[in-house]
């Protein structure tokens, strides 16, 4: 399995420490991956039915996300992009809270402020996600600088895609991290597509990981469909970071099986044959095969698991859908801790009209 980490250009990173991935933990990882795929499929269908808003699927990236999340400690900080449902689940977010956010109901901890997948869970150090590309990268470095100053012994981990490596904040963030040797793990999920732009048109660089060398940061390419490889690379990067060895850029090679989002039609820019070829290396199928081969799993248990997870997902979503809507009066909360006089004036004006309509008759 060590061959799963390949680094054609940059410094070599040893990758043999997978001893703590016991059969039990592998089954656990597999369960998270299947759950994530189940949530993903459900959300695509819910969006088509108009029951949730815009959704950005993660299918194909389950091993990259679950492998990373399992290699971290609860005290580490996550700076996600908007496709990291699996990370949120592994960090301990109950399914119901995920769906509350997707709907934006009264129980949503973000109070219905953001479109699906833009989660924020303070108790899990899962930082509020936004839609602009790459902005979380410099923030993760800043949080790592703060942790350094407090000598907290944690890492900050930021997720982004291949497209984000062209963003201003990728450059700024890696440069800062290199200069200050911050305990940061940069996880680039290279899913080969930035909406319609293929990876090879995003940059002339042979790999994305090699960009790290410009900033004095080790870069590793890892097979993102291989859970063990991802887990190993992130574990090593984490260990290096907390021992003062500085940041690491990990490029997890994956493939975005679905559309960029529910508003995207990938057939405009890629063929079904390309996608089918990529699905030959479906991370879930690969891990399932490994588990079955090692005698730790079988088809019957697999079918049971899928059935159980589908039921859990359906039940959780129904509960979230039945929850009360977000309170219209909360529109003005949290702009500032203490509202300005202008906001109070607007709140009063709003209170005098029908919340979802015009003035009261």
């Amino acid at each position, binding site marked *: 399995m060590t061959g799963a980490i390949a680094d054609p250009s940059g410094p070599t990173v040893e990758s043999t420490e997978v001893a703590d991935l016991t059969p039990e933990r592998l089954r656990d990882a597999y369960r998270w991956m299947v759950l994530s795929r189940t949530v993903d499929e459900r959300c695509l269908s819910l969006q088509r039915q108009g029951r949730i808003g815009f959704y950005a699927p993660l299918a194909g990236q389950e091993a990259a996300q679950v492998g990373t999340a399992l290699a971290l400690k609860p005290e580490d900080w996550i700076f996600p992009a908007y496709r990291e449902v699996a990370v949120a689940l592994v960090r301990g977010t109950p399914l119901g809270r995920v769906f509350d956010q997707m709907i934006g109901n009264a129980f949503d901890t973000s109070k219905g402020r953001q479109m699906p997948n833009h989660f924020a869970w303070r108790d899990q150090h899962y930082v509020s996600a936004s839609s602009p590309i790459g902005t979380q990268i410099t*923030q993760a470095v800043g949080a790592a600088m703060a942790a350094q100053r407090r000598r907290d012994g944690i890492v900050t981990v930021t997720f982004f895609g291949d497209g984000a490596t062209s963003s201003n904040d990728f450059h700024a*963030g890696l440069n800062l991290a290199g200069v200050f040797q911050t305990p940061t793990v940069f996880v680039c999920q290279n899913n080969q597509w930035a909406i319609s732009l293929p990876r090879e048109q995003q940059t002339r660089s042979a790999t994305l990981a090699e960009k790290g060398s410009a900033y004095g940061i080790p870069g590793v390419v890892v097979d993102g469909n291989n859970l063990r490889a991802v887990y190993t690379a992130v574990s090593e990067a984490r260990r290096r970071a907390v021992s003062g060895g500085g940041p690491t850029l990990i490029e997890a090679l994956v493939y975005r099986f679905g559309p960029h989002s529910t508003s995207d039609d990938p057939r405009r820019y890629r063929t079904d044959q390309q996608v089918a070829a990529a699905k030959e290396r479906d991370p879930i199928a690969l891990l399932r095969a490994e588990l079955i081969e090692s005698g730790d799993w079988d088809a019957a248990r697999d079918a049971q698991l899928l059935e159980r997870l589908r039921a859990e997902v359906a039940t959780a979503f129904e509960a979230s859908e039945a929850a009360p809507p977000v309170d219209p009066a909360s529109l003005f909360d949290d702009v500032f801790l203490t509202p300005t*006089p202008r906001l109070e004036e607007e709140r009063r004006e709003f209170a005098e009209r029908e919340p979802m309509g015009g003035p009261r008759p």
Partner: protein
Amino acid sequence: MTELTLVQAVNRGLHEAMRQDPEVLVLGEDVGVNGGVFRATEGLYKEFGADRVIDTPLSETGIIGAAIGMALYGLKPIAEIQFLDFIYPAFDQIVSELAKFRYRSGGQYPCHVVVRAPYGGGVKGGLYHSQSTEAYFAHTAGLKVAIPSTPADAKGLLLTAVHDPDPVIFLEPKRIYRAVTGEVPDGDHRVPFGQARLVREGNDVTLFAYGAMVGPAAEAAEALAAEGISAEVLDLRTLVPLDERAILASVEKTGRAVIVHEAARTCGFGAELSAVLAEKAFYSLRAPVARVTGYDTPFPYALEQAYLPNGETIAHAARTTVRAG
């Protein structure tokens, strides 16, 4: 009380804030060893060390992005952008991130960040060391905007900004960094946000100004007094929150308003003030509201004094306003 220039008062404020709270730190370009290109951070590095006074690489988005990350983690960073003109690489971080974190996370992730930047013209700085673009920030929900015009306010508003749990854009009028001196209270001197400063009382017309334009507005009032026109001068101090009560009370008394800023006229903050007066003081107004502002051109180099409002142009507008009704 100590007699200080405005930039010295900023410096004293920074020292005070960092002594008060070990979570406060300063980051930016040339702020450490060099003490800042305007010397606003002088002495901080020596007193507080490289861990709390951080010389960053030349990247505004890096500075603000990192400051946000630090604040999310629990520190209270004060980020310096060397000139307001150079803030745009960080605009995405300020507008999309800093301003929205508290709101978008349902209050889970507030951003306790102060962004300091010298702004404004009159220093022969040409297009890129002169601009006054406070309106961009005042327009963005989730940001407070403070602009001192005196040394005492520079320290007092800065300390309020550092203690504010929300992001503050703190704009320093570099033209008067050393041109004005004044008595500044020692220690923990704070000036509350949202309370305009009455610079001069008057009955015939109100001159609204902030930052470096308060001086010329006061000069205009002096000149007008000699002509028998009694002009009130109100220094707004903070654009967000805005002291509408003081603004409206003044115009209810004088019936006339002249709004002064060095920023370009179109969508400048004067447009907002003018709208507030039209909406809420219409029946008190005896004459049309006048604006004395920078022009809708890029900021010029050789012609900067022609571009900027001054005592004369402000007094002229006030006379016209008083004659109108």
